């Protein structure tokens, strides 16, 4: 809104006015449009002199409403050819609208609104029921849209390909990351059909100098990366060819649009500024495309390979160090097949140059193949179906409600028809009623879905982000929201619902025989379905029961799965445990595998700092004990390395092992039992003799029937001269990956022997998150260049590990609760209505000597039968449908009879209770009273 006191309307209102003018017939608009705009402008200028902000807004709103109304009236008059006459039709002189009423529909609408206003209980329950059904469905659709229907957000995405390195063994082929030497071989290939190509890998660096030190997620990329992305940079430039030279050092960086806005103030001179990463100065040369956060997702910054020498020397040169994913674009006109043929040749060349046990190959997949997450796809289809069931139950419930209402109004319909209203007119009136209810319910449902989308976006499991066989994030949960597609879906859905719930009662009501009902008097609905075929309300209740049961069984299956997963022992004490990573101080040299002296210094100095951190944190109030490792429990391994078992006489199946360097008190502090031999002590690690401790599963894998103590193992990527380590102990298995994974074999080393970063585990007296602040202060007091990251509690990690199934379980639980409640309320309503209608009959029966029990049975019999039929149908439906859940079940059969039976019994009990309560009233009918009052 303009702030100038004497100016006209703001651009916003002018735009609204032009939109409102669209309601006018084109001829009328051409004739008066510009004049109306001028008059409106002049009047707003006037109004500003007398009206305050809200008054002014109210005035403008009124004007818009008037414009729309007059436009519609003009159109209506043109349409009907009604001779427009200035005769007075409006008796309210305070509003000077001189136009005619949109007769017919408008008056019917008014009639419908009046009817709904007169029955607030009905209207409110109808709107709530619909809001729940539509809200659930719209939320599920939005989820489906994000998970399945969103294409890669890059230009000419059909030319984008994922270039895969494959490793084949006896048990099949799997897609692997590339090592840089192999990638370089591919880049240098003559007449490449894929150009540009780019390698990227995730990495964490420490940012200092912009506020407190913090860990940044970045991608280290080859020079053509942004050409592959294909989106224009917001500012500055991408990387150039020289900057891809891994010997570097090139100190240049491209930052994300968000980083630019939040950390660099969004100024244009940010390009050229210097930032410090891992203690080294880098120059910002470009700002990435808006909204782009890397193929892997979550990146704040990109460094070229040429910067690698600065942040993490030595990694690039190693063959067998599989670190990067590769993507590229097909040259124009080149088919996937042709390029795929070339890539296979590249794969063979790599296999020849670097022969291995699991021989290399290479292949291509189009982005359309990669850009999907099968888990998310199945889950979103599943949840959309579940939400559809909720909506169906809501519709059945409402149809039943409307039907009851229609029955009550049979006389009204008969009278109106006798007075000459056409059948269509009556149907139209009732349909308008259901449309109105659906419209209000739809709007409420959309509001509800906004909340639902927020919840889902927050709970979006990490398992549902990446594409299949890539490091690419293909799903962006922050895209969840109301857009044109979702709104259009909601509108169509509401219209469909209105038809579905309105048409049957409307047709039914309009077809009642006129004279019968006029003759019949007050007991007009005596003719019941019991004798003349199926009772539609019974049908609707049965349907609700059946649909609710399907969901209930789904919840049972998912609940059993989640319960079993959470029941898996972690192998250590998880209570009150905080876990976080922290970076090394800048005084500690970076590990450099090419220079053993630097490498040793890195290990020794890091370990010394770790020990100091351990002492300082243990002294903090609220902290009970602290231990260290490289890579935390339950968050995956930092390193899975090739292993050789010395003096092995047999061939070993497994070739790799998770390597976890730990502090001396690690096993004791976490409560991991030392089964044989010993844990680590002060004498282990540099410069003592290399020793290792194995997990039980490692022992059963590598030393199935011999004593491992004293044996030697050799893992890759150890300090030169210290590859071979003596096994000194065996400890219990611990959960490093998810609970549904097989226990992976683990080799433990001392943190003074080797390391891949620092993770601290802190056991606290109370809530672990209470001490985060004081830990942070303590760390930056010790060294301001040290940054904390991945702060989490073990409880959170456990919840996350069942994240995908947990989300499905919770949503199903919510949906099932809604449907069971609806089915119960629906049953209640139908029974209560039938009791009220049959008062006379029941009174008579009681007067003739029928006991209370007998009457109760009579009333309940029908709903019990209906419910039983519904349960049988529901169980068959669940039997047929539970297969869809199979992908998410763990150690639970999709046909577990206990769960099916339990669901059926539970639902039957709910329905019986819901019909018993209103039925009890039937037994209290006073026969004298009834026979006297009714006729």
């Amino acid at each position, binding site marked *: 809104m303009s702030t100038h006191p004497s100016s006209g309307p703001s651009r916003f209102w002018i735009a609204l006015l032009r939109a409102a003018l669209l309601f006018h017939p084109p001829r009328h608009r051409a004739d008066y449009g510009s004049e109306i705009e001028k008059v409106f402008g002049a*009047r707003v200028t006037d109004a500003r002199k007398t009206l305050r902000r809200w008054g002014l807004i109210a005035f403008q709103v009124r004007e818009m409403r*008037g414009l729309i109304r007059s436009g519609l009236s003009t159109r209506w008059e043109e349409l009907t050819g009604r001779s427009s006459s200035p*005769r007075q039709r409006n008796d309210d002189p305070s509003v*000077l609208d001189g136009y005619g009423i949109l007769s017919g529909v408008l008056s019917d609408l008014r009639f419908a609104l009046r009817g709904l206003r007169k029955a607030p209980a009905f209207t409110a329950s109808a709107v709530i029921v619909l809001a729940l059904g539509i809200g659930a469905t719209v939320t599920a659709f939005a989820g489906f849209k994000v998970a399945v229907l969103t294409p890669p957000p890059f230009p000419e995405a059909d030319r984008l390909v994922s270039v895969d390195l494959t490793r084949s063994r006896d048990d099949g082929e799997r897609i692997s990351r590339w090592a840089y030497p192999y990638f370089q071989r591919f880049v240098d290939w003559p007449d490449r059909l894929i150009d540009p190509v780019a390698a990227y890998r995730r990495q964490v660096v420490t940012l200092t100098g912009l506020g407190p030190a913090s860990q940044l997620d970045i991608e280290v990329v080859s020079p053509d990366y942004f050409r592959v992305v294909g989106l224009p940079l917001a500012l500055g430039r991408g990387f150039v060819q020289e900057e891809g030279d891994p010997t570097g050092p090139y100190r240049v960086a491209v930052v994300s649009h968000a980083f630019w806005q939040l950390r660099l103030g969004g100024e244009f001179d940010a390009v050229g500024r210097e930032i410090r990463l891992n203690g080294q100065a880098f120059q910002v040369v470009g700002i990435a495309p808006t909204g782009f956060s890397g193929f892997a997702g979550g990146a704040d910054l990109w460094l070229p390979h040429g910067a690698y020498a600065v942040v993490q020397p030595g990694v690039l040169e190693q063959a067998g160090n599989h670190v990067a994913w590769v993507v590229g674009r097909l040259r124009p006109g080149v088919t996937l097949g042709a390029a795929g043929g070339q890539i296979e040749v590249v794969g063979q060349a790599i296999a020849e140059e670097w022969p291995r046990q699991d021989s290399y190959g290479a292949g291509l997949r189009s982005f359309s193949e990669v850009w999907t997450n099968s888990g998310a796809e199945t889950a979103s289809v599943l949840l959309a179906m579940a939400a559809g069931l909720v909506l169906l139950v809501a519709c059945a419930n409402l149809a039943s409600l409307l039907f009851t209402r229609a029955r009550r109004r049979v006389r009204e319909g008969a009278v109106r028809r006798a007075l000459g209203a056409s059948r269509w007119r009556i149907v139209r009136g009732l349909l308008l009623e259901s449309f109105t209810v659906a419209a209000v319910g739809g709007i409420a449902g959309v509001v509800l879905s906004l909340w639902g989308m927020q919840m889902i976006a927050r709970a979006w499991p990490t398992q549902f982000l990446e594409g299949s066989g890539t490091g690419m994030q293909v799903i962006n949960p922050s895209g969840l929201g109301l857009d044109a597609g979702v709104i259009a879906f909601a509108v169509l859905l509401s219209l469909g619902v209105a038809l579905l719930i309105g048409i049957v009662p409307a047709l039914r009501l309009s077809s009642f025989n006129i004279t019968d009902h006029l003759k019949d008097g007050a007991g007009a609905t005596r003719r019941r379905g019991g004798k003349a075929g199926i009772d539609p309300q019974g049908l609707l209740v049965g349907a609700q029961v059946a649909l609710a049961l399907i969901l209930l069984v789904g919840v049972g299956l998912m609940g059993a799965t989640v319960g079993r997963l959470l029941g898996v022992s972690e192998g250590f004490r998880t209570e009150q445990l905080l876990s976080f990573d922290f970076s090394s101080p800048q005084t500690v040299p970076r590990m450099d595998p090419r220079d053993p002296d630097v490498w040793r210094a890195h290990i020794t100095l890091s370990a010394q700092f770790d020990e100091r951190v351990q002492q300082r944190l243990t002294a903090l109030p609220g902290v009970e004990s602290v231990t260290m490792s490289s890579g935390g429990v339950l968050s995956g391994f930092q390193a899975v390395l090739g292993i050789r078992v010395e003096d092995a006489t047999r061939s070993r199946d497994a070739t790799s092992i998770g390597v976890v360097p730990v502090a001396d008190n690690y096993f004791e502090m976490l409560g991991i039992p030392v089964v044989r031999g010993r844990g680590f002590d002060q004498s282990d690690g540099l410069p003592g003799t290399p020793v290792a401790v194995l997990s039980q599963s490692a022992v059963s894998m590598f030393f199935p029937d011999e004593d491992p103590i004293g044996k030697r193992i050799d893992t890759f990527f150890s300090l030169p001269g210290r590859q071979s380590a003596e096994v000194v102990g065996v400890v219990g298995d611990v959960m490093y990956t998810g609970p549904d994974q097989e226990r992976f074999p683990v080799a433990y080393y001392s943190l003074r022997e080797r390391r891949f970063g620092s993770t601290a585990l802190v056991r606290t007296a109370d809530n672990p998150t209470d001490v985060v602040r004081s830990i942070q202060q303590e760390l930056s007091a010790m060294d301001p260049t040290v940054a904390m990251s991945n702060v989490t509690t073990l409880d959170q990690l456990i919840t996350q590990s069942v994240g995908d199934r947990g989300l499905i379980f919770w949503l199903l639980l919510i949906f099932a609760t809604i449907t069971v409640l609806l089915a119960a309320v629906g049953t209640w309503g139908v029974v209560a209505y039938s009791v009220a209608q049959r008062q006379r009959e029941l009174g008579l029966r009681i007067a003739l000597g029928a006991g209370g029990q007998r009457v109760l049975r009579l009333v309940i019999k029908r709903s019990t039968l209906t419910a039983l039929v519904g349960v049988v149908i529901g169980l068959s439906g669940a039997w047929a449908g539970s297969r869809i859940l199979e992908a998410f079940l763990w150690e639970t059969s999709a046909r577990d009879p206990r769960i099916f039976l339990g669901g059926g019994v539970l639902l039957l009990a709910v329905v019986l209770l819901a019909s018993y309560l209103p039925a009890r009233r039937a037994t209290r009918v006073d026969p004298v009273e009834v026979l006297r009052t009714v006729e």
Partner: protein
Amino acid sequence: MRDPGELLPLTTLTYHVLLALADSDRHGYGIIKDVEERTNRSMRIETGAVYHAISRMRDDDLIEPVPAHERPSDEDGRRRTYRLTSWGRHVLAAESARLRQLVEIAEAKQVLQPRES
């Protein structure tokens, strides 16, 4: 001549627009200002309704735009001004007479005190 009776009674807005044009030709904004001033702003007038009325009154030949060449040269040429047709003046008189008759009945029944003018 046609019988004005077939158009009566007029809507309040139509009547006010005719009244506004009775003493002077006006453009749309002028009509609104005139009605507002005469009624001490007790009427809420929507621009859309006014133009709806104008369009209909033109169809009924009650008012007409003043042709450009007849307009005073000092006036803003881009605005369209309207004036009463003789038919419009006739209908206005008929409606006023009808209203006066109503008021006289009200006075005779002592619902309203006659104003001493």
